[in-house]
């Protein structure tokens, strides 16, 4: 089954629940098989199947809740973002352990978490991410920039909390 393990991994990152992730992957494969005619040969299969998975997630109860309740900073196409203000604290990230980064990723809003995973883990190009998330390239860039900043903040925050507990 093409991309099964990766689709499952991505599904559980989105849903944060094993059973929901299984339902999501199963529905994705069923939809992909049914709608295979709509896949245009020569176009990107990976972006196509990830798009099915993500759209299925968005219409699920968890997906609707996640997009309805998360206020993102307004983002626009081709927006110029200020230069990142990396501080010595954020260098923490490079030395942080994997579990801490996973914890921080889980805490990010779904739109930030998904764009980071598609770019860094799936190593998709901006064009593939744009097709998968159905957003313009400029928005991919600005959302990625915000997601990276949010991750740095989340890592710091999780690190502080872990020290306290």
């Amino acid at each position, binding site marked *: 089954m093409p991309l099964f393990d990766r689709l499952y*991994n991505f599904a559980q990152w989105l849903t944060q629940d094993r059973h929901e992730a299984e339902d999501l992957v199963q529905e994705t494969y069923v939809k992909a098989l049914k709608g295979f005619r709509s896949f245009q040969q020569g176009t990107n299969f990976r972006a196509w199947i990830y798009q099915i998975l993500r759209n299925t997630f968005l219409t699920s109860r968890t997906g609707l809740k996640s997009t309805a309740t998360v206020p993102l900073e307004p983002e626009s196409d081709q927006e110029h973002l200020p230069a*990142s203000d990396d501080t010595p604290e954020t260098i923490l990230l490079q030395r942080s352990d*994997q579990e801490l980064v*996973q914890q921080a990723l889980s805490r990010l809003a779904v739109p930030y978490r998904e764009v980071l995973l598609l770019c860094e883990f799936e190593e998709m190009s901006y064009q593939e991410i744009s097709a998968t998330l159905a957003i313009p390239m400029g928005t991919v860039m600005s959302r990625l920039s915000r997601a990276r900043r949010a991750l740095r903040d989340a890592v710091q925050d999780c690190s502080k909390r872990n020290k306290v507990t």
Partner: protein
Amino acid sequence: MACDSWTEQLDTYLDGELPTAEARAVDEHLRGCPSCAAQALRRVEQKRAVHAAGQRFTPDPAFRARIQKTIAAPKPTLWSQRWLPVFVTANAGVLLIASAFLLTLQHNRRGEQQLISELVDQHVAILASANPVDVVSTDRHTVKPWFAGKIPFTFNLPELQSSPFVLVGGRVSYLSQSPGAELIFRVRQHQISVFIFQDQGARSTELARTTLSFQVRTWRHNGLQYFVIGDASPQDLDNLSELIKAAG
């Protein structure tokens, strides 16, 4: 501050998405600027950290087997391999009729599934919309006349005063290129869409089902077909359906 314009491009550069000429310019700048080079290094470390952390969940082997079974094409059994030709020859006429019947049934069922999926999509779009209705009113005497001249039929709306349902408003909707009414009701924190279209005949008469966790009710009455869709409890959908049926 002079480096701001370079640091703005760092992520795109490290993602390998800068055009060659610009990438070369950033490359050159990084060689001569320790501050930007340190920044680039930190961002590379972040990319690596997320890449490593991204692989977290592994599917259960039982789940993998289940999916493989679900999507695998059913194989013909020994019995069918041996006897099917004989059976087909002997009963060709019967089989032809049965096949035609099954195909029609399957076609209708697929059509019905598509129809409901389309309406569920419209309902989801309403949930996400900032302006879900074209006529905003809790008064059925305002909402019903608003549709006059916009759709080729009329319908009755129930009295809701003693019920937990609130009419939010309505809008014109389309299904298979035919205009119809979409009425939005609220019960507690849930929104329910009621679609009313002219009866196209081939659709199922009465149905209660769940699609993508949404409850769906549909029935035909007086030349119209009603679809009630929402994520409220099955009981709520049944109650609203009964109120609309009683009004119709």
